[in-house]
């Protein structure tokens, strides 16, 4: 039976476990920091010598750790891009904006085990010569912000922060910075602008890669909450042992946020790729199946921005055979291993590892209308295709979900979405288009039928073909 593997969530929700430093230290807290600071220099076969900090950076690379915030980019590689020759200070920002719809994993760490994050940050900062770091937490988590401030004060008092940390000669300060309700602050360059005290208008890449021109135009590392927690465990376990968790190129564990039409929504930590989408939805250890009498209609596999997967779909995945050769094999949706690469090969992404399950009682038109309203509301407004397009999509879908649809709406919606993606400053453009493109492509019949029914009703003068709804609600009325 597939089971959770609790590395990050080990103490979260454990009876009697509290977020204060005393409890954290009773459970071995800050030992990884001491271990990291005591890292020995390493001699390489080619005669080069790595400093202790370089050793930790190399280990994070060797662990295979990939970012848990959305893009799944190698954390060690990202760190290696940091411009160290400019002589400018290097900053680190923890992305605690957690705003991708469907995602609620960082919230658990922040509220229930804040020191785990702080320890991971201190190690990451030390290894990257960072002396000033920030935790950018979304504005709607005021209690989380206070908990983190409290935890930082405790860590400062113990000498884990401040001047000359534990006699290492390294200094570090970490501060909490609160956002104020804008989704785009989760995008790393928007976040940086916001932290500079401006509107969260994302910057164009190139040239504004944070590793080179980030906060105050200085080299900056932006990592997700969960990513930074993993660094602590890589130090404790060693890179090689960490890399044994999960599957090749998809190492470690990952917290999956499961919501929507399952019996047991919640957060579940798994070894990456060791549990399938079907198991996450149906196994009693995870989602526990759909509501009784319901069947699966669709799965949004990696946060609201990921492309939807339709029940019954079969994907062609690369698999290494016994002879070491790569072959394509057919893998049905429910058998898809939940990892970065499998979902990418299935034409979507694991994104923020948030799965939203939809059963056969749901209207795909209304569901998409709900999502598009989100993107219309959250576009920062800098790029015309995104600002206008996201609004058109939302308006078109509102019409279609309120009995005022047309047959050609399916084509109209795809057309708009196609003209947003790839034409914008930041990946929000894709985030707003992908749900539309995939919903309409995979459930075209449903979109066209609804538009046709509306047209017919109008021709007959019988009014809307289906009930009207207040604000897009995906419930059938």
């Amino acid at each position, binding site marked *: 039976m597939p089971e959770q593997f609790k590395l990050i969530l080990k103490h979260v929700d454990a009876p009697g476990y509290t977020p204060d430093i005393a409890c954290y230290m009773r459970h071995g807290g800050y030992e990884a920091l001491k271990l990291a600071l005591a890292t020995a220099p390493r001699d390489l076969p080619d005669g080069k010598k790595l400093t202790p900090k370089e050793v930790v950076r190399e280990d994070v690379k060797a662990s295979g750790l990939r970012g848990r915030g959305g893009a799944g980019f190698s954390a060690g590689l990202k760190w290696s891009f940091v411009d160290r020759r400019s002589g400018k200070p290097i900053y680190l920002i923890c992305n605690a904006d957690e*705003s991708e719809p*469907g*995602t609620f994993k960082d919230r658990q760490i922040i509220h229930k085990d804040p020191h785990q994050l702080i320890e991971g940050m201190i190690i990451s900062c030390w290894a990257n010569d960072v002396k000033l770091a920030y935790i950018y937490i979304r504005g709607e988590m005021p209690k989380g912000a206070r908990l983190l401030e409290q935890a930082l004060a405790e860590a400062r008092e113990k000498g884990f922060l401040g001047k000359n940390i534990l006699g290492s000669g390294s200094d570090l300060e970490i501060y909490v910075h609160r956002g104020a*309700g804008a989704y785009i602050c989760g995008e790393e360059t928007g976040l940086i602008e916001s932290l500079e005290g401006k509107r969260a208008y994302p910057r164009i890449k190139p040239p504004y890669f944070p590793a080179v021109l980030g906060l105050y135009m200085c080299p900056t590392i932006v990592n997700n909450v969960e990513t930074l927690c993993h660094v602590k465990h890589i130090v404790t376990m060693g890179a090689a042992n960490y890399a044994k968790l999960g599957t090749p190129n998809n190492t470690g564990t990952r917290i999956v946020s499961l919501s929507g039409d399952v019996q047991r929504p919640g957060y579940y930590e798994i070894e990456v790729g060791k549990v399938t989408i079907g198991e996450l939805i149906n196994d009693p250890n995870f989602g526990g199946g759909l509501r009784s009498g319901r069947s699966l209609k669709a799965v949004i596999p990696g946060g*609201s921005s990921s492309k939807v997967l339709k029940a019954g779909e079969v994907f062609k995945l690369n698999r290494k055979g016994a002879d070491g050769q790569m072959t394509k094999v057919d893998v049905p949706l429910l058998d898809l291993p939940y990892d970065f690469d499998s979902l990418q090969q299935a034409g979507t992404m694991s994104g923020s590892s948030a799965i939203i399950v939809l059963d056969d009682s749901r209207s795909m038109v209304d569901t998409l209308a709900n999502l598009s309203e989100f993107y219309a509301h959250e576009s920062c407004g800098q790029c015309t295709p995104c600002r206008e397009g996201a609004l058109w999509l939302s308006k078109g879908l509102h019409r279609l979900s309120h009995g005022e649809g047309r047959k050609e709406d399916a084509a109209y919606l795809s057309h708009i979405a196609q003209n947003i993606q790839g034409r914008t400053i930041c990946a929000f453009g894709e985030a707003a288009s992908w749900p539309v493109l995939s919903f309409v492509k995979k459930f075209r019949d449903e979109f066209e039928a609804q538009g046709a029914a509306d047209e017919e009703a109008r021709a007959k003068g019988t009014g809307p073909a289906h009930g009207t709804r207040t604000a897009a609600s*995906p419930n059938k009325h």
Partner: protein
Amino acid sequence: MSFAVPATLEARLDELTTHYPQKRSASLMFLHALQEHFGHISDEAVEWTARKLGLTPINVHELVTFYPMFRQQPLGKTHVKVCRTLSCALAGSAEVRAHFCEKLGLDAHAHAPQTTADGKFTVEFVECLAACGSAPVVLVNEDLHEKVTAAKADDILRTGK
């Protein structure tokens, strides 16, 4: 109405500016603190923040109008934010919001924030609150309420929290 920032709050904000190499970075934290104290961000608060941080008022004003959490008018004592986004909608958040509105005599179809005439409650739809596993969720001032039913909504209305 006179605008006066208490000395303790000003001291706290002065300390905050030391967290950043550039004072402007403290803008959002200033606005949060001022909104917590005064209930909303007035023009005076914008000007005061600008003066403290060496900015022009427009630099601050454009933040107040960009970030959804900042408000330029006072709202109700109890601020009810119902999550509108997908997971909560699947679990009936539209119905939860309608329930609040009906009980408070507000328009269940309006989308924008609405405040009761007695100034006690403001009800609004917000986007995903990162608690989708316990949908539908409602943020009441600073407290997150999960798996909100009509009965729980009535509790919130009775206690104001």
